[in-house]
């Protein structure tokens, strides 16, 4: 595992952090540090332990073992002080459906102890920031998924947090809503807000995170910047090959053919990954490899050359794809 950066001044500092629910271990001794102003991500499939980690950082879930400090404070004893400086965007929208858009922010500000007029001032500003001003007096229920998410983000910012925790911020949103949300998060980052987010979208991790850890089965399996991870674990490019088979397997590769294809690609690629519907050929130069394979008589139904992504890193590390 790559070296962990220095611990002093870390916004979040975790060593051997563990969370158990009965006999089940949701988070199994993870180490990480988040520096001020950084955008830090947890990338992994559902059930990898991301949400459990976020809840422990948010001081709403007791740590089972190991050490965790947030702003240098202990969540078990100083939870309220930690939460006072946190913004939390939970996976499920926990908006108050009995209140209007404006009231949601106003009351949330009150929970943080803001005076009414200050809470109202910030609420107006934040509705502007997330482009919901014209919905101020509407009920929350009829808002679209993207609007609700933006409102939750506005709510998380009412206390002007130093650290924003986002648990799968864009899951279930359409591409347009995602990009608007990313843009807002990027602006927050520029203002110096530390972001800590979980995602199972590699493009989201690549877009937003300076540094991330890949989690699988309650453990951290890799750490680094998106670029570092791709350089370290996979090649620059990927050649994707699909084969049409007549005998029953649509797009699949029969076992006897597989050996044959492997032979044709032998020496051309650093690594070959066989998926149910296609072959991933990891190589520095996708076009050159494709040409070489063609010369050896390989005739795939389709060829695609693309840059490697974190998805490939995940596949390499765990042998499984991220989104199934």
């Amino acid at each position, binding site marked *: 595992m790559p070296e962990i950066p220095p611990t002093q001044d870390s916004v979040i500092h975790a060593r051997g952090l563990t969370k158990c629910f009965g006999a089940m271990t949701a988070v199994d001794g993870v180490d990480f540090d988040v520096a001020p102003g950084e955008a830090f991500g947890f990338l992994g499939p559902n059930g990898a332990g991301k949400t459990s980690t976020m809840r422990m950082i*948010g001081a709403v879930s*007791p740590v089972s073992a190991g050490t965790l400090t947030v702003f240098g404070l202990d969540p078990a004893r100083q939870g309220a*002080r930690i939460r006072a400086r946190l913004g939390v965007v939970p996976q499920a929208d926990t908006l108050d459906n009995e209140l209007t858009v404006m009231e949601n922010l106003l009351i*949330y500000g009150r*929970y*943080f102890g803001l005076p009414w007029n200050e809470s109202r001032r910030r609420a107006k500003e934040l509705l502007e920031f997330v482009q919901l001003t014209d919905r101020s007096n509407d009920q929350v229920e009829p808002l679209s998924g993207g609007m609700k998410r933006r409102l939750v983000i506005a709510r998380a910012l009412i206390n002007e947090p130093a650290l924003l925790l986002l648990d799968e911020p864009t899951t279930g949103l359409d591409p347009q809503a995602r990009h608007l949300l990313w843009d807002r998060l990027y602006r927050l980052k520029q203002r110096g807000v530390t972001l800590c987010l979980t995602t199972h979208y590699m493009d989201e991790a690549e877009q937003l995170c300076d540094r991330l850890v890949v989690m699988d089965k309650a453990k951290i399996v890799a750490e680094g910047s998106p670029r570092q991870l791709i350089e370290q674990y996979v090649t620059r490019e990927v050649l994707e090959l699909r084969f049409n088979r007549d005998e029953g397997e649509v797009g699949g590769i029969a076992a006897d053919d597989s050996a044959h294809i492997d032979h044709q690609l032998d020496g051309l690629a650093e690594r070959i990954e066989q998926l149910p519907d296609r072959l991933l050929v990891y190589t520095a130069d996708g076009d050159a490899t494709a040409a070489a394979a063609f010369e050896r008589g390989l005739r795939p139904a389709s060829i695609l050359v693309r840059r490697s992504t974190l998805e490939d890193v995940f596949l390499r590390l765990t042998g499984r794809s991220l989104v199934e």
Partner: protein
Amino acid sequence: MLALRLSPPLALTRPTRLVARNLLVYRRGWMVVVSGFFEPLFYLFSMGFGVGSLIGAVALENGSTVPYAVFVAPALLASSAMNGAIYETSNNFFYKLKYAKLYDAVIATPMSLSDVARGEILWALMRGALYVIGFLAVVGVLGLGGLGLISSPLGILAFPAAMVVGFGFAGAGMAATTFVRKWQDFDIMQLAIMPMFLFSGTFYPISAYPPALQIFVQCTPLYRGVHLIRALTTGTPDVWIAVDVLYLITMGLIGLWIVGKRLNKLLLS
């Protein structure tokens, strides 16, 4: 700095933030509150004056007799305080806890679980107070019209006494609700509330029961509430009113303690 030092401790002010939230919600849903206000009044008119006209006078525990409406009015006041507390701490609290996930969002702020519990109990008491004040106002108007239902100056204590009843049931009701898994479970709660309302010496003296049953009824919380308020409004206090107050406050405190434990298990896992 001075203002800071004079401001009340956070443990007292934080629960009121949740009360403010509930007030905002009820600003639009005030009809629900109003319906709870009329219920005991309807009972007062139908039972107290209607049935009461057939019955005439009823003997109190000390042997003196009072008109039936005077007998039944304090019991309805106690029941009203109970109902106000139960309405809020059963269905409403359950909805906010399990469906609206309100408290999941609240505890992500500096608000603690005990702030949540205290805030909701306070709110339930405020709603109960509204019913009690409404009921007492009607009783007051009737008194001006010559239909005196409160025959003692001690009756002035009926209001704080009703708040004690409300606190006891709010704590117990909220504690019970933390064990509820589905809406149907509330039928079981009603199975405890309804007989208490009917059989706790509310509509007739418990001397109608055999001695063993009398002792059992005397151990139930609504009986203690009825006994307390009736002793005050009819001016017949005895040493047992100390037991009433102690019983109800203890019930409320134990309820709050259970709520704290249960919310910890339900929300902070």
